[in-house]
């Protein structure tokens, strides 16, 4: 069986696999670079610049992290749908994963 319908939920296994995979890829991309705030501000040779850099790096790390959180949330939605279907069809859920 490639898909199933349960109440208002319709799930196609190949679609869900593709969606889940892309959401995970997105999360991986968003988290692929080392944190800006971990970088050494000593290269500036200026306390003023080092301080401004630390502030902006923290903010930008948080912003990028929020995208990672969004991607994790998207993955969770797929997981929720799989769990919902799992209660109705354990076999389908296995294929979804």
């Amino acid at each position: 069986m490639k898909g199933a319908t349960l109440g208002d939920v319709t799930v196609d296994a190949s679609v869900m696999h593709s969606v889940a995979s892309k959401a995970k890829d997105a999360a991986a991309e968003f988290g692929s670079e080392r944190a800006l705030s971990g970088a050494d501000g000593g290269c500036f040779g200026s306390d003023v610049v080092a301080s401004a850099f630390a502030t902006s790096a923290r903010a930008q790390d948080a912003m990028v992290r929020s995208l990672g959180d969004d991607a994790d949330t998207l993955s969770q939605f797929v997981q929720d749908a799989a769990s919902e279907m799992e209660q109705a069809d354990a076999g389908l859920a296995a294929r979804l994963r």
Partner: protein
Amino acid sequence: MTADPTAGDPDGIRRLARLHTQHADAVRAGARHVVDAAASAQSGWTGKAQERFVSVAATVPASAQRIAARLDEAASALDTYASEVQRIQDEAHRVQTAQQDAADDIAANASAIRRATATAQSADAVESDTAKLQQLQSGAASLAGLQGRLSVQWDELVTRRDAADRQVASALEAPEVVGRLQSAAAVAKMSDGQFLTWLGSLDKESIAALQDDPTIAARLARMDAQDVAAWWTAMSGPDGAHSAEQDAFVAAIPAALGNLNGVAYWARARANTTVLADKLSEAKRKTSYWEKQLKSASSPAAAAAARAQLQTWQRQRDGYQNIDDALNTGTVSLISLVDDRPPLAQIVSGDMDAAKHVTYIVPGMNTATYQDGTVGNYAAIARGMRDEQHRVAQVDRSEIAVVSWIGYHGPMADDLSFASVVANGRAHKGADALVADLDGFDAVRAASGRDTDLSVVAHSYGTNVATIALTRTHADHVVLFGSAGVTDVAPTADALQVPKGEVFASQGAKDGWAITGQNLSGRQDPTDPSWNAHDFSSETQGSGPDALHGITHHGPYDGLEGNEQGRYSYFDNSTTAQYNAAKATMGLGDQIPEAGSPFDRMRQQTKDNWFMFEWQTGLTGDPTK
């Protein structure tokens, strides 16, 4: 501080610029995956999870675009800075070399002048010696001039470097790099209105950047609930839908929002779920730590200190675990979680944001989250009251919400605070908290434009809390169960900000503790006719399967297990007390027969037990004759 034209590592700065560019590239690549995922999700998947997926995914590309642009802007600023630092350093090195050469020349010239002077002043000096000396002296003046010019050039480089430092610092803090984020100093200077307007202007990724800023949480906690409600509601989507910005605030600062009056209850509940997990985890760690400390204590004093800490953290752990267990039933949500000792919690059955009838249940003494069963019982009490309200008023459950408000520290039976049941200090503190929460509820509803029928049902010492609170804020209906006495702050029901005829009171004939509390404290019995409430019965009514049970003692809840043993408390299902309270809180109070005054109770007691009649009246015989 003077800038150093030679300081810094341009290559290192360029590496940082590249790191920003790599981040921007990764953000754009990630966004492309999200766009692809959203496109794939459009067919072959339907349902609420799919709708939420598409809704969240739709916000990511724009957010990613903004973030990538900010990273690019930072990279560009850093690259420009690196080049300028490089140029300044190159110039500085040239000037330094020239200065060194000039210094060497000046030293050599001075030495030559000293020698030429000696020669020119000697007895055998000739005219050419004097000429040479003059030439050297002229050279010294030239070298001094060169040194001066080099010094000016150096100062110019210091100025250039200072300007470059300021320029890049300004660029890194500019909106093009950090969005609308402001420095802590700038935020501190804002008025409350400016602060909320600024928060409301932030995009979701900038909101995420607030999570490490404790000043935001502290500032919000001091805000007026009406201002908070206006700010929060303005961020809502069409028809009050959750916006990406609201979701971002919940994710970024859950501890600040979880108890913030004025914020929508769905957001508070979600925030508190996050905070609860953190607090439970912390309490488990601390409990484990103090268990080890107690075992390894090196002295009786150290053991006593460890034991005290252990008891505190065990109670925290048990409190949070009990709350977590109640939430895991999936039937209630957590609209407030206060990290007090022990924790306080407000547990809701129903949708607080949508319900047209909302009831706050205020518990009495000996109610604490760490106790076995208490949180679960109050979750059941909220569910039971909501079901009964639905049944008696034939109103859809979606229009009803009931809050079990474990929002203050009542007197406890298992510690010295038991004695405080006869005093009013805890009631006044509880009333302050209840007023804040009821006003907060009003603020949310006023901002959303949804009207509500608001009720308060209080039990035992909680009646003291509720009546004090309702002299300062309002409710549409109030029910007082088994009151341990009401203070003179509310000399009669008329003192409460509740419509006339909507203050109800009931005390079961078999409730031995309510009258004890009243007598020991000297507080008023709200069922006394002089207090002017609408009294109703909590005794058994009817017979057969439709019979309503009379309460058999003072408690709030016995549950199925207790009921099977014939024990009933005020909030148990199928009791006269719960039935009448449901009617009163659903605006059907005029259907409730007036009964249950102290005299009615005495009559009931005499019917149940002759000794009670004799004990209370000093008379003998059959009182019904």
